């Protein structure tokens, strides 16, 4: 500890603390303009100048580290003059457009000008401010308003790791410029800008800051589930921001959080329930709509009813959905989109570790010595994890071991960037585990304590053939050795895996291989690090926890074992069998399923075999679609039930690591549409004859009682509070090693599907903001593959597999290796999942269109 005196008060602080931080501990405020807690100090504005006894110049408090015994003065006539003159300089050629400036009313330059009483110009100079930059998508830059504090540059570089923004030019002409190709359009530059320099084009001229009402809620577009403030005016969401320091995401947002809420105001919003009639879909009232659904389900009978959902709903909604089917319709034919990815991983984690999701909260990643990322693009799937990796491996000294089937943004920061051949992920992970064991890097204490069969593990990995792994993966021995070397040296490790693994052809084996790697390298041995399965859909973890799968009951309890408890609580007999999503598809084709309820999911885009699903949806006798936006899918429905967007309703959601947060309605649902909870509750009340619809609170109590999952969770709607699911801790000797093997043999040219960095599911494709930067899907093609089929950048190609064919434009990119085409599955105009028979990839042939 270091002792120092500030303005006559003595304080003791940790070595390395800055004068500014020490002053704050004493409650002394030193004015700042460029300081931003979450990034390294810049020292640009010089306004925090202070005097240190014995030092013959001022020092800036923000970036001066304390020294034992120093005497600091933060307020003096000299300092006031310096600060005031700096403000006067900053105002030279600053435009007097505050009345129309977006930052007016929440501008730090305004505040500081006022605070120092600067009321007339003291300096003058020729105006050499560059012109306003209008050419960037989504963000306008007004250099004349800029104080060059570099907060935007820092946040872009250190927090997000995009490295898009930079200071360009010299002297007074200098301005913030951008490498557009690096921009992630996360809007963090807009959020941290103290003036109106960085302007959100989607918010510009929408409202004055003081007119806005702020509601704390949660962004549910991905499993990061960032905490946000929803700013509304006249029942419209005008913008979304997040607060530094107070939120799990420390105020940072991605394009989804910042720019993607426009779908809520889309003209494609469904405003009332619809019913298919001869002359097309016509509105009908809720009572009729709900009755009709209940009636048709009853007519079809439990075995012929099926329900599917996606990642858009809240926990209570999922709970009621499965209850409606099981207790109401007498059907256990319920499943979710997680079937095709996330759930495949969770099933392995459950059996291997008793783990129902990520082992730790994502903030445990930020402090590790090494991060292993396999088959994931955290930037697209869960940006919060990307920011944590930036924290660990760029702000900290952590090593990044990255292995994917294509290059992603994080490649530039990886110590061992690896691109492995599709289908070889098990071989890759096994090789790493073997090398860690070989280099005596195994976490033996941990293995000895928890693993019942350490010897089996060791002998299995001793027999792993490194040469075959190198052959199968295409990754060099040197890179694998280096990667293992980093893991051996690391005290704490985070293992992150995502869609490429979970939706891939080897998902179960690969997850098992990753579990073994995590056990061996110490990812699970303490508070720091962990095992993190990612999947780009927002609340699939909530769906799994609520038991939306034929084999699971709420609390991820096995259907066969825990059924009795639910049956007696609900006062019904539970159906015996249940079909999963694949079986439901077969069931429709075989005429066994005649009633299908799609709640917040679009199989035409989200499921493999989308073409087959289209035919099935056309065939099914009665199709209920519950959604918020009109699409090809809703037009196929016999009944459309209009749900609500995430900022229009209440309820809890479960993010990565089991963090349960609470949604608060910032606006009311559009038109006649209703929160999805009310729809399910209404249906259940109808099935159960005359009973009143359940309240949210009652359902939460029921969930808590029956699931055994949320005991530690306080469902609360007050303030920014969240709770966690119970932490993971295995019993000594309870874990068993299970071998993981196999390589998927794939054709020479495969189409790999995944998530777009700029879109979340298909919902955000209805948002003007995200549509500006990613209006449509494209195939990423390696230049060599393009050459061999004779096409150039931007050309149209036909991609075909198993009798299906789709067309799309190509973008040449070295990010995909030869033999791999990549396309995001978010876009209705590039329905790549029509080609995919299973998982996330398929052998294809391509030709010039």
């Amino acid at each position, binding site marked *: 500890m270091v002792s120092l005196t500030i303005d006559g008060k003595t304080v003791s602080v940790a070595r390395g603390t800055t004068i500014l931080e020490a002053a704050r501990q004493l409650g002394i405020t030193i004015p700042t303009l460029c300081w931003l807690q979450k990034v390294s100090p810049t020292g640009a504005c010089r306004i925090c100048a202070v005097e240190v006894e014995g030092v013959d*110049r001022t020092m800036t408090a923000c970036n001066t580290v304390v020294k034992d015994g120093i005497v600091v003065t933060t307020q003096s006539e000299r300092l006031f003059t310096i600060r005031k003159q700096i403000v006067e300089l900053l105002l030279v050629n600053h435009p007097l457009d505050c009345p129309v400036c977006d930052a007016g009313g929440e501008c730090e330059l305004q505040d500081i000008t006022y605070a120092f009483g600067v009321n007339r110009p003291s300096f003058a100079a020729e105006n050499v401010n560059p012109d306003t930059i209008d050419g960037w998508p989504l963000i306008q830059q007004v250099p004349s308003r800029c104080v*060059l504090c570099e907060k935007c540059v820092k946040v872009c570089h250190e927090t997000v790791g995009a490295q898009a923004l930079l200071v360009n030019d010299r002297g007074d002409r200098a301005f913030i410029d951008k490498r557009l190709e690096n921009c992630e359009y996360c809007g963090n530059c807009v959020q941290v800008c103290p003036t109106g320099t960085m302007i959100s084009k989607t918010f510009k001229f929408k409202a004055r800051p003081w007119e806005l009402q702020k509601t704390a809620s949660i962004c549910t577009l991905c499993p990061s589930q960032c905490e946000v403030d929803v700013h509304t005016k006249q029942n419209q969401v005008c913008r979304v921001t997040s607060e530094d320091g107070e939120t799990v995401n420390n105020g940072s947002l991605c394009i989804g959080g910042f720019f993607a809420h426009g779908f809520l105001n889309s003209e494609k919003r469904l405003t009332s329930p619809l019913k298919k009639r001869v002359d097309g879909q016509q509105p009908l009232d809720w009572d009729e709509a709900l009755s009709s659904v209940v009636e048709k389900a009853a007519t079809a009978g439990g075995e012929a009813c099926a329900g599917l959902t996606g990642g858009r709903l809240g926990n209570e909604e999922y709970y009621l959905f499965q209850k409606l089917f099981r207790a109401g319709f007498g059907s256990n034919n319920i499943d979710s989109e997680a079937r095709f990815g996330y759930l495949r991983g969770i099933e392995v984690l459950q059996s291997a570790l008793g783990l129902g999701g990520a082992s730790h909260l994502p903030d445990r990643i930020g402090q590790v010595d090494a991060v292993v990322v396999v088959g994931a693009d955290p930037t697209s799937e869960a940006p919060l994890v990307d920011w944590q990796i930036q924290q660990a491996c760029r702000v900290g000294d952590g090593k990044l071991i990255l292995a994917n089937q294509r290059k992603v943004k994080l490649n530039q920061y990886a110590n061992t960037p690896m691109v492995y051949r599709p289908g070889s992920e098990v071989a890759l992970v096994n090789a790493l585990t073997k090398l860690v064991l070989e280099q005596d890097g195994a976490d033996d204490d941990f293995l000895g304590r928890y693993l019942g069969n350490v010897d089996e593990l060791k002998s299995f990995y001793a027999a792993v053939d490194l040469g075959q792994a190198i052959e199968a993966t295409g990754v060099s021995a040197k890179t694998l050795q280096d990667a293992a070397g980093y893991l051996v040296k690391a005290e704490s490790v985070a293992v992150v895996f995502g869609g490429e693994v979970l939706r891939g052809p080897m998902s179960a084996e690969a997850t098992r291989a990753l579990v073994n790697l995590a056990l061996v390298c110490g990812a699970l041995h303490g508070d720091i690090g962990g095992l993190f399965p990612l999947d780009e859909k927002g609340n699939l973890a909530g769906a799994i926890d609520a038991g939306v799968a034929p084999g699971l009951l709420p609390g991820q309890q096995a259907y066969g074992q825990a059924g009795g408890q639910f049956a007696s609580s609900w006062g019904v007999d539970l159906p015996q069998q249940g079909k999963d999503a694949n079986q439901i598809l077969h069931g429709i084709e075989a005429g066994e399923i005649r009633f299908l309820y799609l709640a917040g999911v679009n199989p035409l885009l989200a499921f493999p075999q989308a073409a087959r699903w289209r035919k099935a949806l056309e065939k099914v006798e009665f199709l209920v679609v519950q959604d918020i936006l009109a699409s090809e899918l809703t037009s196929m429905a016999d009944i459309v039930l209009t749900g609500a967007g995430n900022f229009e309703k209440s309820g809890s959601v479960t993010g990565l690591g089991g963090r349960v947060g609470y949604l608060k309605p910032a606006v009311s649902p559009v038109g006649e549409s209703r929160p999805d909870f009310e729809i399910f509750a209404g249906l259940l009340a109808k099935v159960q004859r005359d009973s009143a619809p359940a309240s949210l609170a009652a359902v939460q109590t029921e969930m808590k009682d029956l699931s055994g999952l949320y005991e530690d969770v306080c469902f609360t709607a007050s303030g920014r509070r969240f709770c966690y699911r119970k932490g993971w801790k295995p019993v000594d000797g309870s874990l068993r090693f299970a071998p993981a093997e196999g390589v998927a043999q794939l054709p020479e040219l495969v189409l790999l599907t995944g998530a777009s960095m700029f879109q979340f599911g298909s919902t955000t494709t209805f948002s003007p903001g995200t549509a500006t930067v990613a209006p449509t899907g494209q195939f990423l093609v390696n230049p060599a593959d393009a050459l061999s089929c004779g096409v150039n950048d931007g050309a149209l190609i036909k991609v075909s597999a198993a009798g299906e064919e789709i067309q799309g434009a190509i973008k040449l990119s070295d990010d995909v290796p030869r033999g791999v085409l990549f396309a995001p599955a978010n876009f209705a105009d590039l329905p790549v999942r029509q080609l995919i028979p299973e998982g996330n990839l398929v052998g294809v042939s391509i030709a010039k269109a």
Partner: protein
Amino acid sequence: MSQVVFSSWGREVVDNRQGGDGEVEAVQRRLPVTFDGNQPIAAFMGWDGVVIKDPSIDVVAMAAEYAKRVQEDYCCAKCSPGKKGTKVMQDALARILAGQGSEQDLTTIEGLADLLQNCKCTLCATSVIPVVDTIKHFRNDYLAYISGENQPKGEHRYTVKLTAPCQSKCPAHIDIPSYIEEIKDRKYSEALATIRESMPLPAVCGRVCPHPCESACRRKNVDDSVNIMVLKRTASDYEWQHALQPPMQPKPRKDKTIAVVGAGPAGLTSAYYLALEGYPVTIYEALPEGYGGGMIAVGIPAYRMPRHILQRDIDIISSMGVEIKYDTRVGVDITLPELKEKFDAVLLAPGAHKSKPMGVEGEDQGYTGFLAGGIEFLREAYLGRPTGMGKKVVVVGGGNTAIDCVRVALREGAEESILLYRRTRKEMPADEWEIDGADEEGVRFEFLVLPTKILVDDNNQVTGVECVRMELGEPDDSGRRRPQPVEGSEFVVECDTVIPAIGQDPDLSFIPEDMGIEITRWKTVVTKTLPLQNAIGRDLQDDMGNALTRTLVTDCDGVFASGDAEIGPLTVVACVGNAHRAAKVIQRWLEEGEAYLDDDDLMEDIIWSLGVYDQDEKVAWLDSVERTNQDEVHGRERASKGNYSEVELGFKDSKAVQEAERCLRCYRVGMLAL
């Protein structure tokens, strides 16, 4: 009479405008009278004041020009007072010059001068100093402009340069403050790009540079210098530790070709910069493939400079389009006249690979165990050939090569490794940390010892060295005290191997006499110089006693020289700086038919001569963060037989950032009026 009309240089005012012969020593001794041997220097404006030598100079116009260049060309804009304050200053001066100024403008500038002392770095803060000096001491000139009496005359031209104490001191003139700032901002690739603008061997100079820059670091005046060298290593290691490809792209291929003799630091450097300009360069290297790098490879052992990292720097240079013909000794496998015939330009960069004789009885007898020399020993050890070394090894010398020899001897399996030096440890020219390293590894030092005779047995096998004890007498020319033998102090150091390592000379026997290339008596190539003399008529010189400003052109048209064979045996960084200049000169010669130094080269030399670092300057700063040193492997095991693993471990990134934060960014702008 004094040549100085007015000077405020060094914050000391000498005003001879009304007659008088006040002198300013620094100006008199270190500033040349002419810019290039021809154009007289009329005035100099810079961080430490203003010097006026030509009474006709328009001081106001000069100050306005200086302020304009500072703001428009150099101000980084990364702090508010600097960005805005220098613009206000520039405009005020421009107004005055245009006859539209007022006395209030002068007051504003004087006020800004105080405010700018709060800047983030010293660029703008030091730039107001000479401007305010002119206002203070030439106020009437300003008032004449303000009242409209004066009009700009425009008789002088100006040449300006941005510099910093470390950057000027670095023989390669790397933009050190810039790359340190980039590391501070965690922009390692950008830092490396900055380094590569002046240094194509960053991995090497990040490890084995004697870092003269650190001796000119202003942070030393606060507490201790910034660890500039290891920060360079950080930037360079970051690239390969993240599997990043170097971003450089050579310009489109040109037709004229260049041959380079020697793939050492000088040869590689000039090849790199010429290749970037699009020239096809062929390097002729005597050693086999895999052993490129010249003295870096054969003279610096792998525990200081791991080979795969050196090779990476060489590979990068090759990938720019440089062809290296290994195993090809010029003078044996191909002659110099043949090269001259075949290529449009030839650069001689053969290095200095021949050990000097020791001048001791028996050294020329061909005794077994008396080795050819230190550099030959290191080379054979590196090539994996038999070195002829026994078990008990004596190395004679006090430079870095001698230290490398004793440390390599241990790694080659010597049971005892002894260093004999005729002065004390303090006078050793070897870097202090190298001596400490040898000490830690168990080398025995014998100081104040002069070998006089090699002792052998009947088979002519060395059995020892007869020595005499020395004592230090009066200082010699180099300032070191001259050692003198102590009578009757003869004694014998038993050994089976003696390695003389007292220095190297270039081997220029490949240059035929009839080519007209002159050789100095120090066996270096003579190159053309510019006659830059100071005010008292003495030729200005560089650190090595060479003429300050050399064009690197030999007396044979189209043949250039660089590196140890031009400067004399020195350091990697000196060779890099020298060879970078050679590349520029060669390019001008190829493109314009004239080999010359441009304004920037001349400014570099003149500013270096004037001196940017002032060890007596009182630097106000809070000394709350100590210098960070890199970790290293300790213990004698690090020098065990066959262990050439790297001893120094570099920085973790967070340590590098912390160390970079200590940099005071001591940029300065100097401007000459001609």
